[in-house]
C-alpha cells in the first residue's frame, strides 16, 4: 500500500484498476464466437467447414490483438468492455454478410439485373481493417479529448459541409446520402454524426447556463427565452432541409434527436424533450405529406403487405416474415430464407437475417450488446470529470443508440424505414469505419475518466505540517 511511505493517506487516489487483462479475456471470447458462427453457417450451407475459416479467425484475432495492444499502450485505464463488444459485433456482421454472399437467390437476382454478383464479405473485411486502423490512429494521435474542444466551430462547418455535400450528387436508391467519386462512394452522414457531437458538446458547454437558468416557468415546464430557442430552431430547420432535399429520414432524425438529448443532458430541463418531440413530430408529418419519397416510405410502413401485393417494394413484408419464421430460437445460421428480401439484405436489412436465423433469443442478445456499448458510454459520461468530456461521451453514445433504434425500429416495422446501417454488423464501409472511430473516442474519454488522480508527492517536512486535500 502506497500509504505507508507517508503518514497521510488519501484513499480516493487508487481508483479502479486498469482491467486490461479482463479486456484481453473478453476479446478472446469475442473472437471465438464469430469463428464458431462461421463454422456453423458453413456446415449448414455446404456440409463442410468453410475453407477460409482459419484465415478469417486469424484475421479477426489479429485486428483484435492490434486494437488491444494499442489500448494497453495509449489508453491503459479505458473501459474494458467497449473494444470486445465492438469486435464481437464486427465479427458477427462479417459472418452474416458472408452467409448472404452464399445465397443463390441473391446471385441470381444480380444476374437478372445484368450485374456481376460480387461477394461483399472480403470488402467488408478490408473496411473493418481500415476501421481498426482509424481506431488505432485516433487513440495514438488524440492525446486528450479536450483538444477537440478547440475545434467547436470548425467542426460545425465541417459537419454542415458533410451534410450538405450529398445534395449535389445523384440520388441512389431514392436518397441522396452518398458522395460518389468514380466507383468509390462514401456516406458522409456517418462521419458527420461524430463531428456534430463534438460541436454540440463544445457549444452546449459554453451556453448551458444561459439555456438552463434564463427561463420562465409555465404549467410545470421551464420555457426557454425566445432568443435561446435560436439554436434549436436552426438545428430543427437543418434536419428538415436534410429530409426535404436528401429525402433521408434517418440522418435527419439522428441529428435532431442527438441535439435534443444533449440539450436535455446539458440543461436538465424536461421542456427541451417536450419541445423536441413536438417539433420533430410536426416536421415529420409536414414533410411526409409533401414529399412523395417519404410518403411512399410511410405507406410501406403502415401497410407493408398491401404495398407488396400491389407491386411495390416487398422488402418490409419479407423482413417481417423473416422475423416471424425465426421464432424464439431461430432456424439456425445459414438455414433461413432472409435472402428473399433481395436488395439491401446485407446492409439495411441485416437485422432480419439475425431475426430469422438466430430467432428472438439471438436478436435480444444482439440488442443487449448494443445496449452495453451505450451503457458504457453513459457510464463514461458519468465518470468524466470535465464537462466537455461528459457531453461528448453522452453525445456519442446517444448518436449510437438513436442509430440502432432507427434501423432496428425500421426493419421491425415500428417506425418508417430509413436508410441507415446497423452499426458494425451491416455491410458498408463508411459505417464500419466511422463507428470504430466513435468507439475510439469513447475509449479515450473513458481512459481519462477512469485514470486515478495523481498521488500527492511525499512532503519533505511531513512531520511539521501535512496538507491533506480531497
Amino acid at each position, binding site marked *: 500500500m502506497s500509504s505507508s511511505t507517508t503518514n497521510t493517506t488519501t*484513499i480516493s487516489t487508487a481508483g479502479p484498476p486498469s482491467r486490461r487483462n479482463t479486456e484481453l479475456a473478453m476479446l478472446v471470447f469475442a473472437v471465438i*464466437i464469430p469463428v464458431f458462427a462461421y463454422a456453423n453457417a458453413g456446415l449448414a450451407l455446404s456440409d463442410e467447414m468453410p475453407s477460409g475459416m482459419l484465415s478469417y479467425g486469424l484475421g479477426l484475432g489479429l485486428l483484435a490483438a492490434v486494437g488491444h495492444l494499442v489500448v494497453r499502450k495509449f489508453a491503459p485505464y479505458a473501459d474494458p*468492455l467497449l473494444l470486445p463488444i465492438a469486435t464481437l459485433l464486427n465479427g458477427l456482421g462479417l459472418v452474416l454478410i458472408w452467409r448472404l454472399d452464399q445465397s443463390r437467390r441473391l446471385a441470381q437476382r444480380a444476374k437478372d439485373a445484368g450485374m456481376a454478383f460480387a461477394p461483399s464479405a472480403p470488402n467488408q473485411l478490408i473496411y473493418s481493417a481500415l476501421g481498426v486502423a482509424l481506431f488505432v490512429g485516433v487513440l495514438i494521435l488524440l492525446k486528450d479529448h479536450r483538444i477537440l474542444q478547440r475545434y467547436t466551430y470548425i467542426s460545425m462547418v465541417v459537419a454542415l459541409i458533410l451534410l450538405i455535400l450529398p445534395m449535389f450528387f445523384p440520388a441512389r436508391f431514392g436518397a441522396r446520402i452518398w458522395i460518389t467519386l468514380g466507383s468509390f462512394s462514401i456516406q458522409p452522414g456517418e462521419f458527420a454524426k461524430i463531428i456534430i457531437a463534438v460541436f454540440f458538446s463544445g457549444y452546449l458547454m459554453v451556453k448551458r447556463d444561459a439555456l438552463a437558468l434564463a427561463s420562465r416557468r409555465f404549467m410545470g415546464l421551464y420555457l426557454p427565452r425566445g432568443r435561446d430557442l435560436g439554436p434549436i430552431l436552426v438545428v430543427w430547420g437543418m434536419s428538415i432541409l436534410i429530409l426535404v432535399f436528401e429525402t433521408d429520414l434517418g440522418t435527419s432524425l439522428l441529428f435532431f434527436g442527438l441535439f435534443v438529448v444533449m440539450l436535455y443532458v446539458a440543461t436538465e430541463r424536461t421542456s427541451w424533450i417536450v419541445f423536441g418531440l413536438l417539433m420533430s413530430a410536426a416536421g415529420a408529418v409536414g414533410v411526409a405529406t409533401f414529399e412523395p419519397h417519404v410518403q411512399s416510405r410511410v405507406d410501406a410502413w403502415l401497410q407493408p403487405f398491401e404495398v407488396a401485393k400491389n407491386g411495390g417494394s416487398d422488402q418490409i413484408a419479407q423482413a417481417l416474415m423473416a422475423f416471424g419464421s425465426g421464432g424464439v*430460437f*431461430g432456424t439456425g445460421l445459414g438455414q433461413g430464407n432472409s435472402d428473399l428480401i433481395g436488395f439491401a439484405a446485407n446492409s439495411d436489412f441485416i437485422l432480419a437475417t439475425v431475426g430469422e436465423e438466430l430467432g428472438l433469443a439471438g436478436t435480444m442478445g444482439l440488442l443487449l450488446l448494443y445496449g452495453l456499448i451505450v*451503457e458504457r458510454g453513459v457510464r463514461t459520461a458519468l465518470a468524466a470529470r470535465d464537462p466537455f468530456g461528459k457531453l461528448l461521451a453522452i453525445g456519442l453514445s446517444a448518436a449510437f443508440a438513436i442509430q440502432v433504434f432507427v434501423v432496428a425500429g425500421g426493419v421491425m416495422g415500428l417506425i418508417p424505414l430509413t436508410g441507415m446501417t446497423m452499426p458494425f454488423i451491416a455491410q458498408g464501409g463508411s459505417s464500419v469505419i466511422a463507428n470504430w472511430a466513435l468507439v475510439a473516442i469513447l475509449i479515450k474519454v473513458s481512459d481519462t475518466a477512469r485514470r486515478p488522480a495523481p498521488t500527492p508527492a511525499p512532503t519533505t517536512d511531513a512531520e511539521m*505540517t501535512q*496538507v491533506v486535500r480531497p
Partner: protein
Amino acid sequence: MSELTLTVMRLGFLAVLWLFVIVAVQVIRSDLFGTRVTQRGSARRAAAPDRPQTQQQRQQSAPPPQRQQSGGRGRRGAPTKLVVSEGTLTGTTVALQGQTITLGRAHDSTIVLDDDYASSRHARIYPDRDGQWIVEDLGSTNGTYLDRTRLTTPTPIPLGAPIRIGKTVIELRK
C-alpha cells in the same frame, strides 16, 4: 450434416452469445456495488492489524528525538490514527505520531477542511504530557462538537468519539 449436429450448434451458438452478454454484465458489476473508498477503508481495517502497521510507519519516518520522550506512546489502547469518517474528506487518515494536528480552512492546516461551516483555524488536536490526545477549539465561529457537546475548554478525546466540525466528522482509532 446431420440435423442433430446443426440443432446442437444452433442452440450452442445462442448459449455462447448469451454467455458473453452475462460475462460482460459481470465485468461491469463493480460499478454497481459500493465505491472504492469504503471498500478499501473496511478492507484495510479488517486486514491490517494495527500494531505492525504503526511499527512499520514509525520505522519509515525517522522520528525526531523529542517525540520518544512522550511517555504514553507505547501504552496499550492509545489511538494511532485519526480518521475522517464523514464529510468531503471521508476516508482520509492521519497517523498520530506526537505532532499537533491543526484543522481548518487555512492552507497550512494539517487537515484542510473544505467546509463552509469551518473557520480558517478551527481546532487543534495535540497530545498532552501523558500521551493523552486533547482537542481544543481555537475560537471558531460555528464551534467544535465532541459527542454533541460544544467544546469550551481543551478536552481529552475518548477513543472512537466523534468530533464534529461543520459537516466533517473525525475520530481517533487504534
